């Protein structure tokens, strides 16, 4: 008797999991959709927020819920499980997912320049070439994107691990403040302005080492959806993309700046206004680096290079032909 | 050396009724005395007032000439980390080594000395506990049901043995066994309902000693007196 009860409970447990997951999939079919961001609400997601707040999704008949991301969130997993219809993921995430058979599709590339760069004090260091890092203490987040990028840069410049001292980076900047580390990885449009201000208050000036300037284009955040959405609800995908990109275009318009900052403050209450303004300016330069850049455009060459880098560093076992899952937004 | 309680009034903390109301008695001669009465009348409370465990009472307790008053009860345990023999050895003053052996023999406990306390039967546990109290320096020992779970014959042997070994010491034996207290005790303090006055009545027992015989009639007479008193 007891055995039967146990068997039935195991079955019911599995059934309830499957039911709850498939239940979410059903909601995907309606025109309500969850859009899972990669990170918390801040200036780097302003276009996503702006599109929502200014009703661009609604205007196209979509009921989109924009949800914050975070370190434990993975938009691609959520797409597959049906918890979200759209999401933001970094290129390496997309390529890793493809390598494991995930049916993910890229529908827009938000960052044209990767915001992940290295900050350093400019008075005693000038990194104009990768070789300038020789003998320096370089901060790297083991397992993070910056490790992949730095290893690629070093390989290109013919440097090995013996040429630099690697410092394992954590969430707090104390080692950089204490000058124990020479170059420290930061997100240009979120952490960098804060660091810059703090060091500026101490009379120190900083500069940035941008991997793209040294030939390493590693694609950052992009907008993704599932293959199933592409096939079954192409209109929803199209409308979503155009609403989102319109949001980004408007959010980065110079004349909208005050309104944009006002909108942003509703979501990001912790960042001081002067820092937030700087973050917005930098975000603009990374997403729309040139006047004629169309927001969302896919830099196919950068995607292919990203895949190549990952392949070279054994992060994926074989090529995934990333270009096949990229749908150009226009 | 005598024990006297005068006008003891006592109630439990948060209790609504007096346990004792003007309770008085005297015990002027050493020997084996008893506190007798049904459960809940306050025998243990009186014992603890006498030894000074409870202070929240009014009235006078005088234990003239008695320095060491001990209270022992039947639920006490010895730690189980060594054998009861070792425990007894540790708590016996060197001058009382012979007495220890004597007690062990007279309590029929020689076989159990290598065992741990938890390995003993309930009756054996109570006996070994009593032995360790008897090996202390005391003038009054209160034995609260200290021979519970011990068979009648052994109990008799033990009580007679104690009386023989400690003729000049006060014992207060708390028991529910009317025959036993009538037979062995000198004075029996019979507890009555707290609403009755006086609350205790002293009945003289047969005070049976080693080598004596007890008259059946006298014993029955004592038992009747106890019944009437309560």
């Amino acid at each position: 008797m007891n055995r039967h009860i146990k068997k039935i409970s195991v079955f019911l447990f599995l059934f309830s999991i499957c039911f709850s997951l498939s239940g979410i999939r059903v909601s995907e079919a309606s025109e309500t959709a969850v859009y899972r961001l990669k990170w918390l609400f801040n200036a780097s997601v302003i276009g996503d927020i702006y599109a929502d707040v200014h009703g661009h999704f609604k205007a196209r008949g979509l009921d989109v819920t924009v949800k914050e991301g975070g370190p434990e969130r993975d938009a691609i997993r959520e797409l597959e499980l049906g918890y979200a219809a759209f999401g933001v993921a970094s290129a390496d995430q997309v390529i890793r997912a493809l390598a494991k058979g995930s049916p993910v599709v890229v529908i827009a590339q938000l960052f044209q320049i990767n915001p992940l760069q290295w900050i350093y004090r400019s008075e005693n260091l000038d990194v104009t070439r990768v070789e300038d890092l020789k003998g320096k203490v370089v901060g790297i987040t083991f397992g993070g994107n910056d490790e992949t990028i730095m290893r690629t840069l070093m390989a290109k410049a013919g440097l090995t691990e013996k040429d630099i001292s690697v410092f394992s980076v954590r969430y707090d900047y104390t080692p950089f403040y204490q000058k124990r580390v020479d170059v420290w990885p930061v997100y240009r449009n979120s952490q960098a302005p804060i660091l810059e201000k703090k060091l500026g208050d101490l009379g120190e000036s900083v500069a940035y080492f941008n991997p793209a300037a040294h030939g390493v284009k590693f694609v950052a955040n992009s907008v993704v959806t599932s293959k199933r959405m592409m096939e079954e609800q192409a209109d929803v995908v199209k409308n979503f993309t155009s609403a989102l990109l319109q949001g980004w275009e408007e959010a980065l318009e110079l004349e909208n700046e005050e309104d944009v900052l006002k909108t942003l403050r509703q979501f990001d209450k912790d960042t001081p206004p002067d820092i937030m303004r700087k973050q917005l300016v930098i975000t603009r330069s990374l997403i729309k680096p040139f006047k004629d850049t169309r927001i969302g455009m896919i830099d196919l060459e950068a995607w292919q290079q990203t895949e190549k880098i990952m392949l070279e560093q054994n992060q994926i076992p074989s090529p995934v032909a990333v270009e096949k899952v990229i749908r150009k937004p226009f | 050396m005598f024990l006297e309680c005068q006008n003891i009034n006592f109630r439990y903390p948060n209790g609504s009724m007096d346990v004792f109301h003007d309770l008085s008695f005297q015990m002027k001669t050493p020997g084996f005395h008893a506190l007798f009465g049904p459960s809940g009348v306050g025998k243990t409370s009186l014992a603890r007032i006498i030894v000074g465990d409870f202070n929240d009472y009014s009235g006078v307790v005088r234990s003239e000439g008695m320095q060491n008053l001990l209270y022992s009860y039947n639920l006490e345990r010895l730690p189980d980390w060594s054998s009861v023999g070792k425990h007894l050895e540790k708590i016996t003053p060197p001058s009382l080594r012979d007495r220890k052996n004597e007690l062990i023999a007279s309590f029929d406990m020689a076989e159990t000395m290598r065992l741990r306390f938890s390995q003993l039967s309930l009756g054996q546990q109570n006996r070994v506990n009593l032995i360790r109290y008897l090996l202390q320096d005391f003038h009054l020992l209160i034995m609260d049901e200290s021979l519970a779970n011990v068979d009648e014959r052994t109990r008799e042997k033990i009580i007679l043995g104690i009386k023989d070994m400690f003729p000049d010491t006060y014992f207060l034996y708390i028991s529910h066994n009317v025959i036993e207290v009538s037979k062995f005790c000198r004075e029996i303090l019979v507890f009555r309902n707290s609403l009755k006055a006086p609350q205790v009545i002293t009945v003289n027992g047969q005070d049976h000693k080693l080598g004596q015989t007890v008259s059946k009639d006298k014993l029955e007479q004592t038992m009747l007196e106890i019944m009437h008193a309560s």
Partner: protein
Amino acid sequence: MLHRRIYQFFIIYLLGLLVLFSVKYLLDLSDYVIPGLEDLAQTFRTVFLRYVSDVVDTISVAVIGQVISVFMAIVVGVLGRQTTWFGSFIKVAAYNVQAYPIVAIAPIIFILFGDGFLSRLLIAAMICYFPILLSVISIMSEPVHDIEHFYRVTGRMRWQLEVKIRAFENLNKLTTVISGSATLAMAGTIVAEFIAANAGIGYSIRIALYQSDLAKILTALFLIGITLSVYQGLLEIAGYLVKKGWASH
């Protein structure tokens, strides 16, 4: 005792995998969401040795942290057993500090002690110290009247004897708390490594999470589980031996 813990862990782990695989195959999820059996086996083979050494590193820190905690908890618990101001102060402090989430305290520890061994040790010790302390205090402040009475009325009671009686009478409770706190020490060390350290299995899990590699995480969980089961089993055996040894004096 030991083998029971190990096979119980195997059952739990296999049941967990079974649920995951059922969901994977029923919903046709890719290896990215839930790794396939082959993927898991491959990852297991690749990272096994490295992860074993990471887990050994972590458990070493956890064990040292736990030993320190047990020692300190006994000292403070014995001091704080009386119903004095100091005793109640220790209890209040222990309850309060226990309520703080370690992820909030960890950054302060890392700033003060860096991201090496000491920080991991401190966090592991902190996480398992307070539950042990509270148990020790509760055990030590509860008189065992039926045993203590004799020693008290005959003037033989010393603090050492009081502690000995209470510890002996509650040996089962103490060994359960100590063996249970092994899990806390391990969890504490892993959290510390996850947040900031440069070594240990927590650090490897963090890297695996960066790479969205669930297969690596499942491997790590397996090794953590099995190590913890062995450790707890050994603690139980040690507790049993202590009791047996103490009882055979």
